[in-house]
Structures are given as C-alpha cells and as structure tokens.
C-alpha cells in the first residue's frame, strides 16, 4: 500500500499539487511470505535491494524474511532512478488498522492500493520530523490556495452568468 508523499500525490487534484519526491514508500504487512514476494518482484523488475545500508543478504529466503519482519527493518529497492522503501512501519498506525480505509486507484493497467489521505497526513503529524513538519505546512497551504482559487473561479463564473 502506497503511503508517504507519493501516496498524498495520488489525491492531488491538479499537477500543481503534486509534490516532487524521489522515493516511494510502500507499507507492507508484517508477513514474511509477502515480504519475500515483494523482494522477488523488485528483483525481477531490475531493482537492487538494500537493508541497513548494505545489499540485502542472499539467499532471499524465508529465514531472512522472518528476520527482517521481526526487526521491522526497512528494505530499499533502488533502480530506474527510483527509490522504493518497503517499510513495515508507519508512525501511529498498524497495517491492519489502515488497510480497510485504503483507496484503490488505477495506474495504467495496475490497481494501486493507497492509504487514505487522512491516515497518511495523521502519520506524518505523529512522526513530526522536520521534513514531516515542512511537508504538512506546505500541503496545508497548497490546499488553502486551491480553495481560494476555486472560490475565485466560481465567483467569476457567477458574475459572467449574471452578465450573460
């Protein structure tokens, strides 16, 4: 399930509200078998896998997956100019709490589960790192600006209608 800034971007209503980000955060359930499937899918698509600043160990077997899941360790997939974080942690939330509230969007031919906007923002607020605080302030201002513009458009349209 997509979370983080990339997740927020899926709710953008105009290109001007899409935030630039190099990494994509995928929140995975704490399930070793699923973790293994995610690793193999990344490898098949040509991504290198990293964990704790080192290449993910070999073989990518069940034992390794169980260790990663029990430590809630982050595995990063890198390739094609992208960084994809396979995370087992989302500040303030457990996977099973937010999964039912997800949206499933279409991207090309793929159905992409994305955490609810409210959950992503609430998680950033709970984490409260400087980069989260900066994002929240920018996002709030961007939504406010969008609201102002829409009110402007709607007022201009009603004036035009009254004239016409």
């Amino acid at each position, binding site marked *: 399930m997509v979370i983080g800034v990339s997740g927020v971007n899926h709710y953008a209503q105009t290109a001007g509200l899409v935030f630039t*980000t190099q990494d994509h955060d995928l929140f995975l359930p704490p399930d070793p078998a699923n973790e293994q499937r995610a690793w193999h899918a990344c490898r098949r698509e040509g991504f290198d896998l990293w964990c704790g600043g080192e290449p993910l160990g070999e073989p990518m077997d069940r034992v390794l997956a169980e260790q990663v899941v029990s430590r809630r360790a982050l595995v990063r997939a890198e390739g094609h100019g992208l960084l994809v974080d396979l995370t087992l942690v989302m500040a303030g939330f457990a996977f099973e709490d937010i999964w039912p509230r997800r949206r499933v969007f279409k991207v090309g031919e793929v159905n992409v589960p994305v955490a609810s906007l409210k959950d992503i923002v609430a998680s950033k607020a709970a984490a409260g790192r400087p980069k989260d605080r900066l994002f929240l302030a920018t996002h709030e201002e961007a939504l406010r600006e969008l609201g102002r513009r829409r009110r402007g458009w709607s007022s201009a349209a009603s004036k035009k209608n009254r004239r016409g």
Partner: protein
Amino acid sequence: MDDDQEYEALVRILEPYRNMRIETGPVVLSEDYLRMIEEVASAPENQSGADKTWVETAQREFREYFARVAREN
C-alpha cells in the same frame, strides 16, 4: 573566486542556520486543515477506481527534469 574562498563564503552564508533549532515531535492538525483533507478525500476523482496514471506521469517528469538540471549544473 577559488575553491577555498567559495567554501568560506558558503560557511558564512550558512552560519545563521547552524544555530537554528528545528522543532520535532507530534504536530496537532488544525480543524481547518482536517476539513480541507476531508473535502479532497471525498472528491469524486479521489474514489477507488479513479485513473491516476497522470500522477505517475507527472512524478516521473519531475524526476527526469530534476535529474537533468542536476547533471547540467
């Protein structure tokens, strides 16, 4: 300007920021912000099944643009 002078100029520019205290910790979201989030999330274009291919395209174009800028400079 040689490398040492550039470095010293950069240190001078950054000096005020070195002493800045950056706040961390949980943030309380305003009622207004939560209301705007609710509005965005309930928009018809943000319901399950909506086509978001354009978002991926925009994100890819941004990445490519910034990679090009970084290479050119």
